[in-house]
């Protein structure tokens, strides 16, 4: 892997600006943030669910901790992150495979951005994400558990 350092290297600061890439760039940032959040949850989940090895008392003690309202809110955030990351990930794979990006055109000035062809897919995916988040929120806070 090329290890060349560039003068315009922005590091984490570079993630915060979408520039001319628009909303897709912010989705890219959100994809990474949600990915890191899910990874953190997953590492905790491995240890928490492994508690069942030690029998019903240890398991009950671990579950008692997770009944705290803070964890309930955390569970909802994990669901939000998971819904976004999964559906946006499907969108990224489709685009990577050359689907939903329109047909290839000869690059004649004024050039057209393929982002315009990708945008309907992005809008559809984000609407589905929003519906899932509302349904998940209702189930988490008002559903019967």
């Amino acid at each position, binding site marked *: *892997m090329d*290890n060349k*350092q560039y003068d315009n*290297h922005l*590091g*984490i600061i570079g993630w915060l600006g979408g520039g001319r890439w628009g909303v897709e760039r912010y989705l890219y940032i959100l994809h*990474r943030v949600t*990915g*890191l959040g*899910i*990874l953190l949850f*997953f*590492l905790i989940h*491995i*240890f928490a*669910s*492994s508690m*069942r*090895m030690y*029998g*019903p008392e240890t*398991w*009950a003690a671990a*579950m008692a901790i*997770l009944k705290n309202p803070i964890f309930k809110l955390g569970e909802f955030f994990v669901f939000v992150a*998971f819904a976004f990351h*999964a559906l946006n*990930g*499907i969108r990224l*794979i489709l685009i*990577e495979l050359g689907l939903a990006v329109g047909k290839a055109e000869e690059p004649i000035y004024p050039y057209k951005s393929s982002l315009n062809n990708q945008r309907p897919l992005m809008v559809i995916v984000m609407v589905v994400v929003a519906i899932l988040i509302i349904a998940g929120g209702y*189930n988490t806070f008002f559903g*019967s*558990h």
Partner: protein
Amino acid sequence: MRETAYWTWFIIAAIVILIFAGLHMVVMHLSMLGVFNPEGGAVTNWGNVAFRSQNQFLAFTYIILLGAALYHGLYGLRTIVFELGPKKSFQDTFTVLLWIVGLVLFAIGTYAAIAAKSLELAL
């Protein structure tokens, strides 16, 4: 070439996660599937947990999901860290460290999934 292989496995792991995490969500969150929650009540009640732990198919799906999620998550973390432009020596060390962390967590999770098969049912 190696980076291409890493990335290809990253995408394959994402598809595996979609399938198996989806299945995990259905089993854990759709209370109508009483077949996985014979004790009734919360899915985390001991009787339900012990019952699911004895199911070989579910144990198999846990292990597949564990491996795919660890690989996908840790490779994603590696990509993010590498974008910050660390030196080659750091990149190599970090890659080895992630492999070790991933394999240890996979061993712990797999052991838990297999050892939990002997849990006593409280039904």
